[in-house]
């Protein structure tokens, strides 16, 4: 599964994208965030305040309990500030 990071989520994780092999049992956005946070302090820092994290599955906005099944691209980013 491909994971993309934008804005300060990208800066905090120190990467713009990566390929990951999900461990068994990770089935939702919340589950994925929980697992990412175990991967090091940079992820702990990036996801420390989940209220400011938005997620998109294959470019569709998702919520914490959206299932990951069938998703090939997950993106994490802060609330949008365009325009």
């Amino acid at each position, binding site marked *: 599964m491909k994971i993309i990071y*934008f*804005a*300060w989520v990208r800066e905090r994780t120190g990467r713009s994208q990566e390929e990951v092999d999900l461990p068994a049992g990770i089935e939702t956005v919340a589950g994925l965030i929980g697992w990412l946070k175990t991967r090091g302090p940079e992820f702990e820092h990036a996801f420390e305040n989940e209220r400011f994290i938005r997620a*998109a599955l294959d470019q569709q906005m998702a919520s914490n309990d959206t299932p990951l099944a069938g998703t090939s691209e997950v993106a994490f*980013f802060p609330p*949008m500030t*365009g*325009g």
Partner: protein
Amino acid sequence: MILKICIQPDDFDTAIECARLTEGNKNVGALVTFTGLCRDDDGRLAALELEHYPGMAEAEIQAIAEQVQVRWPLDGLTVIHRIGNIKPGENIVLVVTASRHRRAAFEAAEFLMDFLKTNAPFWKKEHLADNSGAQSETGWVSANDADDDAIARWRTSKKT
């Protein structure tokens, strides 16, 4: 109905975009443009850096444009959003709406900007003129509640 959605580093020419929506269509009675510019906040800001999610940003604007077309009878709609480094006084975003009547053109442009602000995946980072100034940890602009309120009003009641 002419529709153009473009995300680009280059500046845009509002006059050219307006002409595209009116030339050859003499039923356009109202043309509204909204231009969002980079403010310098009284000299505080040196530049904005605009980041976006390629693919999803275009798709989200397209989805907003489709809602706009359902709600208002438009002859044309153009949305151009710049990315990359933008200096104070420079353009960031352009929305142009063309319609027979002014109410549709005004409301469609306002609706599009309100939803673009909240739903389209763009992020702004501030580069300060003087780094000693107060700034969030990394310079990333925070989303503001006024923008969420702005979209709420389109949901709770139809403007008259």
